[in-house]
């Protein structure tokens, strides 16, 4: 993709974000600017939009196009067992500690198309904890949640996912978790049975439960510091004492005053709430 010179200016990006907030109630103003501008330019080129005015008109007047816009400017790249070392720590350290609770409540915030939710579900099953766990998997974007609910992923990815799974400490035959259906791998209903997929907007929606584990590994880097702080406060409100917070591989917590309430689990981007 070639980002042509000044096709859309920073001011025009602000205008679009202002429209989204005014007409649709979606607040993207706290997103990192370079990233969101890139996403907007990408979509503009992809859809061969002829002018900014037309682009803006389509977003504001065509509901289907608005949905596409939101779907495309948010990043929905994810994998099963991405960063295997992280999932190994979940398997060996975090989830066994949570095994003593009668009901394990997990919030996967920004779950995108669901690959991580199924990954967590597989580990819970292998630890014999799935039957007493509930995974709330949420995303801002209804279209990706629909896909997540289907539990079908490209067959072409399975080799990579299987390698990730083994590196994360999995010892079963990974292919026993899905049935191959032409180009798609459909994951078993048992894995999906304890996952609740639902829309939730981290920017504007409130806490909806208390959890012992909150995972948010794909989202915070797209937010500016103020918004990151707001979302970390939301997580703190939604966390039981001694609960765990898991963030992405490049995430930081030390910029936030809330970091005082957490103790880092060595080696991974996982923190335990200690007060």
């Amino acid at each position, binding site marked *: 993709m070639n980002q042509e010179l000044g096709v859309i200016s920073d001011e025009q990006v602000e205008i679009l974000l202002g429209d989204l907030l005014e007409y649709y109630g979606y607040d993207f103003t706290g997103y*990192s600017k370079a990233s969101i501008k890139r996403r907007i330019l990408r979509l503009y080129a992809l859809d061969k939009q002829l002018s900014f005015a037309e682009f803006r008109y389509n977003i504001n007047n065509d509901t289907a196009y608005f949905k596409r816009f939101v779907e495309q400017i948010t990043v929905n790249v994810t994998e099963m067992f991405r960063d295997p070392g992280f999932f190994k720590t979940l398997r060996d350290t975090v989830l066994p500690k949570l095994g003593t609770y009668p009901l394990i409540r997990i919030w996967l915030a920004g779950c995108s198309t669901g690959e991580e939710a199924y990954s967590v579900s597989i580990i819970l099953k292998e630890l014999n904890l799935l039957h007493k766990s509930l995974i709330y998997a949420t995303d801002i974007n209804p279209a990706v949640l629909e896909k997540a609910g289907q539990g079908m992923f490209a067959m072409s990815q399975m080799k990579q996912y299987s390698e990730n799974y083994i590196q994360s400490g999995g010892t079963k035959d990974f292919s026993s978790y899905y049935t191959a259906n032409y180009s798609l791998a459909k994951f078993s209903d048992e894995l999906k049975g304890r996952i609740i997929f639902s829309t939730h907007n981290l920017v504007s929606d409130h806490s909806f439960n208390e959890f012992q584990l909150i995972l948010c590994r794909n989202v915070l880097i797209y937010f500016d510091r103020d918004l990151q702080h707001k979302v970390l406060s939301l997580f703190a409100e939604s966390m039981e004492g001694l609960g765990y917070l898991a963030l992405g591989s490049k995430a930081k917590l030390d910029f936030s005053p809330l970091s005082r309430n957490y103790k880092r689990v060595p080696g991974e981007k996982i923190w335990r709430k200690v007060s």
Partner: protein
Amino acid sequence: MNKCDALIIGGSAGSLDVLLKVLPELNPALSFPIIIVVHRKHGADSLLPELLAGRTRLIVKEIDEKEPILAGTVYVAPSDYHTLIEKDRSFSLDCSEKINYSRPAIDATFQTAAEVYRDKLVCLLLSGSNADGVNGLISVKAWGGTTVIQDPKTAQVAYMPQQAATFAKIDYTLAIEDMAEFINLLS
């Protein structure tokens, strides 16, 4: 040439050797930051900053998200993220789709930096086997920045600088042994 506010070096196959030769020759008091974006395998733990740090007295570190970009520091783009430059001269990271089969993509950093640093940006594209960075150099030129490539004759894999020379306007073509002096003179 205009005052340099940032130098970005992009490379792929065959670029590490160049960096290891050039870094020891650099003036440790450079008046601008150096941002290094090289393709590497995800998962292989980030040994690159450590490896480079052993070759220079400049501070070398892997980029953290939202980190302000400071002069006299060598920043290394982390694997599996795109490194973007914000208007306020800080980094943001993005794990969106690969570009040119690459994440980090050199294009993403060159292009976002082009608009921020404009005529005070210098981008150097080294040896490599794909065309990542070429569109970026076109943007850098369009915003008034300076484009530099490794002389394809000196590159282990000539394809990347060759593609750049074909499709982008290149200001300087440098042999490996001339790079350190060129960079020191930007200061």
